[in-house]
């Protein structure tokens, strides 16, 4: 039963394999360029297991020690996860002992596979879901480790490599922009952040921008909700 579920899950994770391997390697190289030992890469890939958050983690680790700020940043960056769970209640209902793992391992990519793919006829759904998550995680941990090992084995000029994070956010922003007609939420985010950056400077603008975004979303709820519901 397990083997059958594993073989059924494998092909659906192949696109994730390439994506995770590539961005994992980029993360690992970036991590060593920040001066961390290579083994921090697998440690972070297991403890945090969230792509964009790990890239931001490197920025946070480069700043003075401030666990509260790190927590606030994590909750904000990963806030979207809270809404992934909402559509997984039924899928994880009978997962039993695997349920805590499935919740811990619910990354953007695993979520997207589990949302779109139903296990083939005759395949155990709960083992199928488990292997989708476990395979994806193994790619991510593997990619991060590989990148970190490469980064510490070869010395090369990594100046500017942190643009990988900027590029990542840019393409997510662009693809979200193209998939929606109402751009107000995206513009509110950019607008509040730019304003807060100008007012409070690069080290203290995150919290004020979050407050600004939240308030504008509350004020504009009626018109925005109406147009978002139409999409």
């Amino acid at each position, binding site marked *: 039963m397990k083997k059958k579920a594993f073989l059924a899950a494998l092909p659906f994770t192949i696109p994730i394999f390439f994506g995770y391997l590539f961005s994992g390697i980029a993360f690992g190289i970036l991590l060593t360029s920040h001066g961390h030992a290579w083994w921090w890469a697998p440690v972070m890939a297991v403890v945090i297991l969230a792509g964009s958050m790990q890239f931001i983690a490197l920025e946070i680790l480069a700043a003075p020690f401030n666990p509260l700020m790190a927590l606030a940043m994590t909750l904000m960056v990963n806030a979207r996860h809270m809404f992934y769970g909402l559509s997984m209640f039924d899928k994880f209902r009978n997962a039993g002992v695997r349920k805590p793992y499935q919740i811990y391992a619910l990354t953007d990519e695993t979520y997207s596979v589990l949302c779109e793919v139903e296990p083939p006829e005759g395949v155990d759904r709960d083992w199928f879901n488990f292997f989708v998550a476990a395979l994806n995680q193994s790619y991510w941990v593997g990619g991060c480790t590989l990148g970190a090992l490469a980064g510490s084995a070869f010395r090369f000029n990594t100046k500017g490599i942190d643009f*990988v994070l900027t590029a990542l*956010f840019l393409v997510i922003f662009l693809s979200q922009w193209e998939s929606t007609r109402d751009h107000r939420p995206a513009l509110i985010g950019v607008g509040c952040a730019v304003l807060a950056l100008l007012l409070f400077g690069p080290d203290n603008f995150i919290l004020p921008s979050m407050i600004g975004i939240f308030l504008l979303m509350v004020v504009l709820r009626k018109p925005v909700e109406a147009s978002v519901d139409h999409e």
Partner: protein
Amino acid sequence: MSEHEILITVLVMGAGTVFTRVLPFLLFSGKRQPPPFVAYLGRVLPYAIIGLLVVYSFRNTQLLQYPYGIPELIAMLIVIGLHKWKHSFMLSILGGTAVYMILVQRVFV
């Protein structure tokens, strides 16, 4: 940061991430639906937060002194162009980063 402080920070970020994944199961598991206001925020906040993160990743760009944010601007246009052209996450990220690295290492030194 010392290794000790790094470990604490990593654990905090791990706990925060797990918290965001577990929360809906703790709050709304079973038949209870989230309140409409929460559902609304869930639909619109991801767009705003990515916008904020784009600005975050540019936060240390100096516009008023050399090289005036020109490498960032060029690399950003490359990312946008590659994305419009092929719609491949990997290509856009790899291409933009490579161009940026060349610019800051060789052109705007």
